[in-house]
């Protein structure tokens, strides 16, 4: 609160400050939306929000706004909460008082899962994947998982528009007799599973299609699970005697992602998955008490016969290390290590001490991207890992490992800014790409603000190609093949240590 007040007071010292105003409209009907909470906050301080509740005319107005770049967001029950891409730039000669902000009603994907006889399949796992550009590549990210009701029905409500994929797994209810009756009843009862189905109700992952959901659309996706001969997977767990354990069995499915086939919780050391169709699977087990967690992972093939899998729970991995400045000298304050979980997309911030040391005593295993956050003039020059596998820019951390990380940072990151123009007029919300041809994974992108301006900070010295795209929402800017058409007209840029470059980009 005090900080917010501070910048409001700062605004008051100016004659009047600037004005950000406009109308909130329903993206479908273009009708004004009343009773919504619209907020504006400086781009660098998203927590310093000023709220405004729209009236019947859907109008909002923020007066006395200091010069700067702002993030505008709107939320209202019955609509998706939206943060608008591209900053609103307040300043002299900026027209920021007639903004039309669209807010979208939520979309819905719902449907029914039935078996070969058309009867509902309860407790099927319906998984929704979101296909989106993440760090410059189109990736499938697990968005949500739902279990079907006794009617076989499921619903994913409150969905933003987007490109979705769906996968459904399940098992016939009667395979449970495997547990009480073992192998004596007919295998059609105890050893039947369902193959995974993908939208639009196909068995082959290669034939899966995206479901392109528009704002406010109600889409239906029904699935039919067909019985296939299956095996029982008996998991024996060593360690973690009385602890509740979470078991997750996943199969390879859509490109770059896994499909959850079964999940469960069990306190004992044995867990049986019935009705598992032949295929390659990954098992993950996690046990926790109040303070600690243990993990186990295993990959195996399941064939026509029952399979025994033995896993040992291992302690959570730890990570420790240090960072040094390449040129020597003392480290700046507020430097932190960012670990980006490649599967969940979540990130973890690890504070770095004044002595350059950092440590996480226990963490979940996984694959992580390694970056540095803090003062913009510092950048991560290189890193190496002991007892952790480095694959490209990804750090693979496994159960019970004690990863030692060594980071080299350098001062002198560059700054690249400018304006995107078309026919001499600024273009708002255009995509600007700073491509790193030597290391495409390090390519970066940003969107222009309302005045057509863009800025990259913390740019490591090196050779880059800089270009703008009017509607680049689908551009895989970290894929050399995808950006090749733009490189011909791109500006070649060599960023020197601590260099600052201003480039006008014409579309």
């Amino acid at each position, binding site marked *: 609160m005090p900080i917010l007040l501070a910048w409001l007071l700062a605004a008051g010292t100016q004659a009047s400050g600037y004005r950000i105003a406009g109308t909130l409209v329903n993206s479908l009907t273009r009708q004004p939306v009343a009773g919504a*909470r619209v907020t504006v906050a400086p781009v660098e301080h998203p927590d310093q929000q000023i709220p405004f509740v729209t009236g019947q005319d859907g109008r909002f107005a923020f007066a006395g706004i200091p010069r700067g770049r702002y993030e505008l967001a709107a*939320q*209202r*029950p*019955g*609509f*998706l*909460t939206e943060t608008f891409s591209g900053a609103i730039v307040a300043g002299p000669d900026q027209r920021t008082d007639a903004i039309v902000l669209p807010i979208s009603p*939520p979309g*819905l994907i719902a449907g029914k899962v039935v078996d070969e*006889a058309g*009867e*509902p399949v*309860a407790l099927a796992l319906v998984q929704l994947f979101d296909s989106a550009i993440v760090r410059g590549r189109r990736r499938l990210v697990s968005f949500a998982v739902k279990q079907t*009701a*006794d*009617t076989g029905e499921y*619903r994913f*409500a*409150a969905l933003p528009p987007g490109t979705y994929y769906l996968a459904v797994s399940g098992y016939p*209810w*009667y395979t449970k*007799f495997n547990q*009480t*009756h073992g192998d*004596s*009843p*007919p295998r*059609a*009862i*105890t050893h039947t599973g369902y193959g995974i189905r993908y939208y639009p109700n196909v068995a082959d992952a290669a034939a899966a299609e995206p479901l392109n959901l528009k704002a406010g659309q109600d889409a239906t996706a029904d699935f039919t699970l067909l019985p296939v001969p299956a095996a029982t997977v008996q998991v024996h767990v060593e360690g973690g005697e009385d602890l509740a354990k979470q078991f997750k069995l996943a199969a390879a499915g859509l490109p770059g992602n896994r499909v959850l086939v079964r999940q469960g919780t069990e306190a004992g050391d044995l867990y049986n998955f019935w009705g598992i169709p032949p295929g390659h699977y990954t098992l993950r087990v996690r046990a926790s*008490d*109040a*303070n600690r967690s243990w993990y186990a992972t295993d990959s195996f093939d399941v064939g026509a016969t029952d399979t025994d899998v033995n896993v040992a729970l291992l302690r959570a991995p730890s990570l420790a290390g240090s960072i040094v400045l390449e040129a020597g000298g003392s480290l700046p304050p507020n430097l932190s290590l960012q670990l980006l979980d490649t599967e969940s997309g979540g990130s973890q911030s690890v504070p770095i001490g004044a002595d350059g040391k950092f440590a996480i005593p226990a963490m979940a295993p996984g694959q992580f991207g390694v970056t540095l956050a803090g003062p913009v003039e510092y950048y991560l020059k290189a890193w190496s890992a002991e007892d952790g596998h480095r694959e490209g820019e990804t750090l693979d951390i496994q159960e019970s490992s004690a990863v030692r990380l060594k980071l080299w940072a350098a001062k002198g990151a560059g700054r690249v800014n400018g304006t995107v123009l078309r026919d001499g007029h600024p273009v708002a919300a255009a995509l600007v790409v700073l491509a790193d041809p030597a290391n495409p994974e390090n390519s970066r992108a940003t969107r222009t603000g309302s005045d057509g301006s863009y800025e990259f900070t913390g740019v490591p010295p090196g050779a880059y190609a800089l270009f703008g795209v009017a509607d680049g929402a689908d551009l895989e800017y970290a894929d050399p093949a995808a950006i090749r058409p733009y490189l011909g007209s791109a500006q070649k840029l060599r960023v020197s240590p601590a260099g600052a470059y201003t480039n006008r980009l014409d579309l």
Partner: protein
Amino acid sequence: MPSPLLALAALLAAPVLAGDADFCIGGTVVNALTGEPLARAAVTTPQSATMTDAAGAFRFCGLPAGAYYANAERPGFAPTGVRVTVGPSRDDALIRLQPLTVVSGKVLDADDRPLENALVQLLSISTHDGRRKVKVQSAVTTDDRGEYRLAGVPPGRYLLRAAGWQGPTASEKPPDSSRNFAPVYYGGAPDLASATPVTVEAGRDVGADFSVTLETSHSIHGKLAGFSAVLPTKIELLGPEGDLNAAPFTFNAATGVFQVGNVAPGSYILRATQGEGDQRLRGEQALQVGSADVDDVLLTLAGAVVLKGAVRTADATGSSSQPPSCAVQLSPAGASMSEEAAIESSTGDRGELEIAGLLPGRYRLRMDCANGYIAAAHAGETDLLAQDELLISSGMAPPPLEAVLNTDGATVDVTASPEAEGEPLTAWLALVPDSGNELHIRFTILKGKVSISGVAPGDYHVFAWTGSPYAFEYANPAARQAWSDRAASVHVAARDHQSVAVKIAAGDSP
């Protein structure tokens, strides 16, 4: 078909040999309400399993002669078994499956807008030691349409309640997260005492909508004292009936500072628990949430205490008398939805008592002694014959429980006759003193007649009912009053031998 000779051989052969396994069980699975055959039902015996065909028919073969339980199961129906004897084969087994019920409806706010993520609970009603016990049988949250669905509900009497809002979902963020509603039972009752049960009958789906009033909710802020920094911590908010409120909490194990969020106005008991089992630490405090946050709550945790004591025999004339042998039970008092289990113990060789694991709170005492009745029971100043509840205070060793056993009890022979011709003679029987004193209540099973010895002198009412042993709240004076016309009364004196006849009532609580 096996020959009669083979069948005879199978009957005589013991143990059963593989070659004897020549019989079949065949039959049909039907919907008990409509009589329609049920396809794709699983029928199992302990040895095998099969599925019914389109005509609901099933058949097992290769069975040795003998009696089997054939159990049928299908989603949406209650599993049911029948006993079938083969040798010769049978093809007329009929398994009737009762359809389970779906209870569904909507939760709407005061403006008739659907409320997403509201918690709806189905509560089963039974009794424990003759008092009503309400348990959450299943719980679901409403979807984006405000709809909920509880499938597979067996027939019975239930309470249904909208218990609270579970917080905002993806489509509904902060503007409303400081709102919640007070629990409401189906029918509109605000509390358990005035709630009307819903009767669920097989195959008859129940629609039950709720209208709730969202109010500004508040937080409770405070600090724990006497806490451990390493034990797992649970902070709960309980309603007046011991029902858990699903309020989210945060706790800082370093400072003891806690916060419970999104609490609708109302009366609560704030409870903090650390650890498990006998090692638990517990603190409780009643508080009222009104129109503002509740600040500066100090909740002191204390460990479980041990209640010691002894039962001695009063009229021990000479050394021949047996030592007292009593089962003792302390159950949490007052809260019919409490999930806390009763604590049980029994007297030692010389009548000594030691009941461990008692957390602070109010308890009801039950004592059942093999060779007499409790003539006097005190815990410090508390006369437990005059007062049913025993208070265990926080962090203090409770005064010893001193009880006196009299062996001059009376014997009461009860004969029961069914209300209608042909009804079963097996029933549940409660012998309840008119004084209401719970230490003198006797509860037993009755098969035509039963003899109850060691009955304390006094005036009694005798109740008998069929069906569930939990159907009658015999320890509740109001329930006894409602059933007074079906009770028999008897007066007993010391060393008396009385006979009393009672009619067996159909076991539905009034």
